């Protein structure tokens, strides 16, 4: 089966050349509602976005917001905060959705929509461009 070995070698070479993921460099911040005075660890935020945690430390349900998949901040958040590509996150959420284990973060269209929704909901968490943050929300330091 020499041709199979050749095919595998060719595939490996293709991976090494073509896999280089796009780099997005938008700076972002994780935000929660100002009235949320709990200790919010970044690891918990990560688990909420991965679908493995659903609640804040006091037991109240967390509401998470996402930006559109093509948004540079969404790409940077997935890569730098969750250590996954956006496509990898889709795989994680396809497992959660089709197993009925969790409901995905609600997708909003802009930083402003995310910020306003976090302001409006005490249990909310989101991420926006660092340049768009103001004192209407609480920033979780990284």
């Amino acid at each position: 089966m020499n041709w199979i070995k050749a095919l595998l070698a060719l595939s490996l070479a293709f991976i090494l050349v073509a896999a280089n993921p796009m780099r997005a460099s938008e700076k972002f911040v994780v935000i929660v509602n100002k009235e949320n005075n709990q200790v919010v660890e970044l690891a918990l935020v990560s688990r909420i976005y991965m679908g493995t945690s659903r609640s804040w430390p006091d037991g109240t349900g967390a509401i998470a917001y996402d930006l559109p998949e093509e948004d540079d901040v969404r790409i940077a958040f997935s890569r730098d905060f969750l250590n996954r590509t956006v496509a990898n996150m889709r795989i994680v959420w396809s497992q959660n959705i089709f197993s009925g284990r969790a409901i995905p973060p609600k997708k909003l269209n802009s930083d402003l929509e995310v910020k306003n929704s976090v302001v409006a909901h005490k249990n909310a968490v989101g991420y926006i461009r660092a340049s768009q943050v103001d004192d209407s929300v609480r920033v979780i330091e990284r």
Partner: protein
Amino acid sequence: MVNTLLLMSFPPLLSLLILIGATFLPLPAIAQQNYELSGFASATLGKVTGKTKPTDNPSGYACPCFWSDYGQGSVYESSGLQFKPQSKVAAQLRVFTNDQKFYLTGQVISRAVNNGKVNLEWLYMSAELNSSLTVQAGKQRLPLLQFSDVQDVGYSLPWTHLPPQLYGWETVNYQGANLRWRPELAEVQVATNWFLGNNRTNDTPYFRANFGKNSITDTRWGQIRGLEAKISYGGVSARLMALNTRAQYEYDRNSSTLTNPLPIRVRTMGISVDKNNWFSGVEYLNMAHINGGDKNTTDHAFLIHTGYRYGKFTPVISYSSYRQKSANPSEPAESSNTAAVALRYDYSNTSSFKFQLDRWRDTSPEDLKSFHGNSRLLSFSYEFIF
């Protein structure tokens, strides 16, 4: 308790209960687009290149062949390029209340292996009693193994098909009720799932290997009682599952009768690690058929796999093994293993291409090799979700 047993004995009653539950969903609560429609599809082509031709194959399949999914009767035959075994399309609808505490989930699947016939795969209602406790009732996937919940969702998996030695049994779904407990314990995640129910499968695809592709069988798993427990910390998860049931079979619905109920005990365990883009896992299954004395048999199966996410590519290698053991040492027992290498390419955020090479080795005694023989499978798939 009587009501629960009654419901489990009569799946139509359970369906009726779900429909009543759906009817009483407060209308204003579902009026504001409180539903999600999603779906998945796989188009998979495969070609078998075999070395050993079975001499006495009773199944009616063109062999050497490759059983990619016993649970669905998915077989790649040695008759050119095959599209049917793994190709499918499915839709899932979830309707929920404004607070998302009560929801109804339904999933239908059309499989090419069933000539496109649309089957209701799941239909269940869920009620979140509090942030860690959820009760569910209806038709659901039997949580035998780590990937059981998404075994049909090609896009969710690193392979074009799950390793057949471990995945794909005579019963994959059940009708009943379950209680999920998922407490938040800081960085440790614990999840348990206690389930009760039963299931009946006519013309069980699993038995086509033994009784032929056109066999008309009846498989009933009654009094299913099971507990699944998973604990995760960081990127490491450990999972245990125990299930007891009483099984009855009718091996030919035209001429045989239903067997007496006999116990089956299933135990599975697994450990998976996902760190720094590496993911690996080990899973083991032990299924004991308590038929009495020398007739007792046990299925042993395991899977080991590892893969790496490298940008848009995910290569994975795996090895799965199956071995049957009979209490009667003179009884010939089936055994086989499959080594696989697969490569996934994420074409977009919702679609992927995969290429996979499997090598099936039939390690059964000579007089049983007629069931399979050795084979190789090359498969290529395009999968997407919506």
